[in-house]
């Protein structure tokens, strides 16, 4: 059913020439496009050659021929209507001042500040194709979070001629900055990201300057999901980088990326401070303090268990700075 509707819509879109489609599929689209779009396409083709010499940092709108995942894309001439899948993308767009161009968002983005609460909301991993095509987005920014779902649930949109842009979840602060710059580039002006990135750099550098002076590093355990399936992270996650910037040390720094952590590893790691970004249970801090056998952990003894804003710490966007400050103040209250 969806396929039929998608193909009817596809035909309609061919006639009205709204979408952008993939440039490498060689669809009949190109023939029916009005001249200006064809010009734009040939321009981007020329630019694709130049892109080899341009560094990725220097993406201007016309240069962009791939998304952050490496899929070839062709941006529409004008981007007025944007759909976001993934709160980090929503936060970045709002931060760049494009909040008013967002016409549809996933439910997770619902609590992103500065987003119209009455927007059509949809499920990120199972988007309602018909409903979304009705709001006629020019581009869709999709987070890497949906990749875990397996098949490409956004293919129907591509087929319908909408430009789908994947932004895989960045695992480093540098990656997050690149994402911001890239999204600004897609929206027409990469330079628009300079302000946000500079602000991020300033705040991060200020904390790093203090962090570097700390020699007696506190050990930190940061929990993303509560017991019994405790979820945390090791090296290769921006949160680990943030702990290091503050001048502290992740007890799981020798692990790789996201892990379901064994309870005794935490008890043996004996963190000085425990942070949690869990917000789905009533009192995550008390839950941690009350765990059997955890009373020997320094952080529990010293009452150094703190909640860190869930959205700020879990979404890779410029808002991580907010989480960074919260973390710094909780880990070293006397220094920050």
């Amino acid at each position, binding site marked *: 059913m969806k396929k039929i509707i998608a193909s009817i819509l596809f035909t309609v879109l061919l006639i009205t020439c709204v979408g952008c489609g993939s440039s490498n599929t060689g669809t009949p689209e190109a023939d029916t496009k009005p001249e200006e779009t064809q010009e734009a396409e040939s321009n981007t083709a020329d630019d694709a050659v130049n892109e080899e010499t341009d560094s990725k940092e220097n993406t201007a709108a016309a240069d962009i021929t791939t998304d952050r995942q490496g899929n070839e894309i062709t941006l529409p001439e004008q981007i007025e209507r944007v759909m976001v899948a993934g709160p980090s993308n929503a936060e970045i767009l709002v931060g760049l001042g494009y909040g008013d161009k967002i016409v549809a968002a996933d*439910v*997770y983005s619902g609590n992103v500040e500065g987003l119209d609460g009455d927007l059509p909301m949809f*499920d990120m*991993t199972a988007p309602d194709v018909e409903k979304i095509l009705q709001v006629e987005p020019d581009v869709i920014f999709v987070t890497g979070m949906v990749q875990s779902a397996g098949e490409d649930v956004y293919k129907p949109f591509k087929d319908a001629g909408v430009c789908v842009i994947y932004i895989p979840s960045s695992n480093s602060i540098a990656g997050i900055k690149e994402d911001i710059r890239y999204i600004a580039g897609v929206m027409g002006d990469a330079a628009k990201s300079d302000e946000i990135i500079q602000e991020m750099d300033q705040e991060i550098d200020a904390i790093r300057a203090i962090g570097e002076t700390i020699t007696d590093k506190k050990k930190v355990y940061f929990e993303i*999901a509560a*017991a*019994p*399936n*405790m979820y945390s992270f090791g090296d290769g996650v921006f949160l680990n980088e943030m702990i290091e910037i503050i001048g502290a040390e992740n007890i*799981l720094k020798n*692990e790789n990326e996201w*892990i*379901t*952590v*064994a*309870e*005794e*590893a935490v*008890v*043996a790691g*004996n963190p000085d401070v425990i942070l949690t970004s869990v917000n*789905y249970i009533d009192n995550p801090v008390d839950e941690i303090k009350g*765990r*059997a*056998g*955890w*009373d*020997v952990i320094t952080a529990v003894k010293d009452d150094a268990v703190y909640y860190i804003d869930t959205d700020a710490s879990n979404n890779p966007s410029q808002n991580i700075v907010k989480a960074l400050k919260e973390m710094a103040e909780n880990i070293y209250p006397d220094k920050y």
Partner: protein
Amino acid sequence: MKRKITISIIISILTLLFAVALGSVYVSPMDILRIIGSKLFHSPLPETVSDTNISIIWNLRLPRSLVAFVIGGMISVSGVIMQSVLKNPLASSYTLGVSSGASLGAGFVILFGFSLPLMGGFSLPVMGFVFGLGTMLLGISFAGRLDKGFENNTIILTGMVISLFVNAIVTLMSAVKREQMQRLIYWQMGSFSAQDWKNLFILLPIAAVGILLVFHYHRELDMLTFGEEQAKTMGVNTKLVKWILLIAAAALTGSAISFVGVIGFVDLVAPHVVRKIFGSSHRYVIPMSALLGGVFMVICDLVSRTVITNQEIPVGAVTALIGAPFFAYIFFSKRERG
């Protein structure tokens, strides 16, 4: 027979010791014995043993392994009853909807944040238990209405229908509350993480009462396996006995999985192994299934928490990964020998 039983008991004790000795963190065997000794007999502990290690052994590994043992035993005994009463080697509490019912109860707590008054912390196990047992009761009373003779096939079929129906409700609930769905899926995969003494002391009496109750009916169980007609002629009130045993078995599984999540295959593997070793007399099958089911569960939990250092994998995956091929082997090798 005595030798076999003695060996089984020794294996159980060794497995438990092994489970306490191994983990992400190395604690020397001497220290482990010292820690357990000091806790049990208040013997002095040398300064060299750190608080951390004491906590890891006494508050994490020991209760966890014992809970795994008790739960393995409960689920296995439940499996024995289901298979014998329903005369089907693949029958289990899960076939009759206990697991889907428990998932439904867990879904209310995990997905919708439902919390019981006065026992907030135990909302999940209580809801899991009540819904697990309730679903199964609904199934068998339905079977009783449909079929005056209370035939096994009717019970299994209605159980499966109810189970599928309840599963559909769980799926629907998950679809509505997608943000929390992952937690429910994790719960369904099972975990012995974060088990403490408190849970053990709740489970132990349930296990004891349940297992003793079904053991009381071991003769009736033997007769039932010969066939219902024979059992009836020997003076067994088959319908009543079946009701009691099915409810007891469902209660055992229901209370077990409501604490740790749905863990499969233990109730298939352990009873079949036990029947192969100890014969089919329920006088032996019931206690030995409790013992070896416990051993199997402890081993699976040990694998789930040690196969990757500092990390855990869901124990439900381990029981199925080890259990499925093992079960196939036991089941088919038994057939060949006739």
